[in-house]
């Protein structure tokens, strides 16, 4: 049996951590509260140990690992690189297309495969539809966290239409196994383009309605403005990415700054938080960046559908995937939550030697103790909601 090494014990919420009052007639003490793994608004099995002084948070210690499924160890025992795709799906289960694409992209670059143009366009359409679906979940559950139960139902109606599109193409609504290494598993069905155009036309006014109902609601603004402010330099130092980074005012989007696929041919703008309702980098900024991003996704989808070329989507799928020995690559893509990166090392056999998945939610969550200090418990719920974590990606 391996012996664990002796650890430095400067963590534990022991007696010295909690401040008790001295010299007063009534003894006061800070309280430790456990926002346990099961909780309606931690968006999954996340445990937050909070030290509070009344309602003000003094310290917040996240405990993760409740959903750890040993993704990286499994990858080392796969018999084939294609077999990893369904497992990669299940990492960030709310945004599965982007996971698959990141892994497929990494392997294709390692093998130097050129995929047909049609495959690129379809991948972009699927990823953007997935981004809208994922942001709809984020926005809907954010409404519930703040007490507005109704926008959740409205966003899920819109999401149903996207899931219908996915089901029409690959048969699955949530976990697709669609983007394969070198191509796609199925081509688009005949009615897809028409239905996608209908969806775009249907969704634009719904976005405006959602904004009126939730984003610009006086009470919602009061709850989220100036709450959980993430300054720009802290964000970059903590390697935060995605809407959270853009909400803090950093104009960084991997689709434009480290381009992959055909994004450089399409016209769209990354959305940046401007501190409209409070400070730059507060919860409201992150929320409105997600709302605006959904609109930009609609633009991308329209352009991609308009420029969709003909081709065979399965032409470049290799029969044997065997990269060279000591080949390694790190590829980063812009998933719905931020920078999703895969670092793959090969040893010349058909199964990967090492796969490291850099999940954006994992990194974005690590900044929570910094920005939650000094706020109230009610704020903590909203801050955790604005980070938009999916525990499958945090724990892998």
């Amino acid at each position: 049996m391996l012996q664990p090494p002796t650890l430095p014990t400067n963590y534990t919420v022991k007696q010295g951590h909690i401040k008790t009052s001295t010299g007063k007639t009534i003894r006061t003490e800070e309280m430790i509260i456990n926002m346990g793994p099961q909780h309606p608004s931690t968006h999954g099995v996340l445990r937050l140990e909070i030290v509070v002084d009344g309602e003000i948070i003094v310290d917040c210690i996240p405990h993760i690992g409740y959903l750890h499924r040993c993704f990286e160890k499994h990858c080392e025992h796969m018999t084939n690189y294609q077999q990893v795709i369904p497992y990669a799906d299940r990492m960030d289960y709310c945004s599965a297309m982007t996971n698959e694409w990141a892994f497929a992209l990494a392997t294709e670059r390692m093998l130097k495969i050129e995929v047909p143009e049609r495959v690129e366009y379809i991948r972009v359409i699927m990823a953007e539809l997935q981004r809208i679906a994922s942001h709809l979940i984020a926005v809907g559950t954010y409404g519930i966290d703040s007490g507005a139960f109704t926008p959740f139902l409205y966003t899920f109606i819109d999401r149903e239409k996207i899931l219908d599109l996915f089901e029409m193409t690959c048969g699955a609504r949530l976990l697709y196994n669609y983007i394969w290494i070198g191509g796609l598993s199925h081509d688009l069905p005949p009615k897809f383009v028409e239905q996608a155009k209908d969806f775009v036309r249907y969704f634009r006014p719904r976005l405006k309605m959602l904004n009126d109902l939730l984003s610009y609601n006086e009470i919602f603004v009061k709850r989220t403005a100036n709450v959980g402010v993430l300054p720009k330099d802290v964000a970059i130092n903590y390697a935060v990415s995605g809407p959270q980074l853009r909400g803090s005012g950093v104009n960084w989007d991997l689709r434009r700054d480290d381009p992959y696929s055909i994004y450089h041919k399409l016209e769209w703008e990354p959305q940046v938080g401007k501190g409209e309702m409070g400070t730059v980098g507060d919860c409201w900024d992150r929320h409105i960046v997600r709302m605006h991003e959904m609109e930009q996704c609609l633009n991308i989808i329209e352009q991609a559908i308009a420029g969709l070329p003909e081709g065979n989507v399965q032409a470049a799928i290799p029969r044997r995937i065997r990269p060279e020995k000591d080949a390694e690559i790190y590829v980063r893509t812009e998933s719905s939550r931020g920078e999703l990166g895969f670092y793959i090392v090969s040893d010349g056999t058909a199964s990967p030697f090492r796969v490291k998945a850099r999940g954006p939610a994992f990194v974005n969550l690590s900044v929570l103790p910094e920005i939650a200090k000094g706020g109230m418990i009610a704020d903590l719920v909203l801050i955790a909601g604005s980070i938009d974590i999916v525990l499958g990606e945090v724990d892998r």
Partner: protein
Amino acid sequence: MKAQEIFDILKAQFGDALIETTISAAGGSASVGYAMQLWIHIAPDKTKEICFFLRDNSAMQFDYLSCLSGMDYNNGTFGVVYHLASIIHKHKIVLKTFCTKDNMHIQSVSAVWGTANWHEREAFDLYGIIFDEHPDLRRLLLPDDWEGHPLRKDYKVQEFYHGMKVPY
């Protein structure tokens, strides 16, 4: 900036701590001009100094640590791979350090980038690499009283955990 230029600047500054640049076998797709895989080998006890330099030097300004991965090379060597990026200059670099099984100590870079805190905890959790000067090195993904480091190549899963049979 290209990796060779970065290596030259680092060599001038740190001398012995750097050992070599190597081009990996994967060159990257030519159409996108994506050649990222040159990596710089640095010593395990100088990582913090070198990373501070990389972050603060005005020509390089690697202010973004994309990924920090633990590695087990299956021949008694372990290591850590750092993927750095710069938001200001938009360039990237890869650093690698190695350590042996008897001396699993690598200097922590959590003072340089706040994100390294959790990444290093994860590397410790899954590989057993001990990061010196880390403010709070304990397990992250696995329970605190788990035995062993699962991602090692020679890992044998434990029989029982709190009375529950683990392998099935």
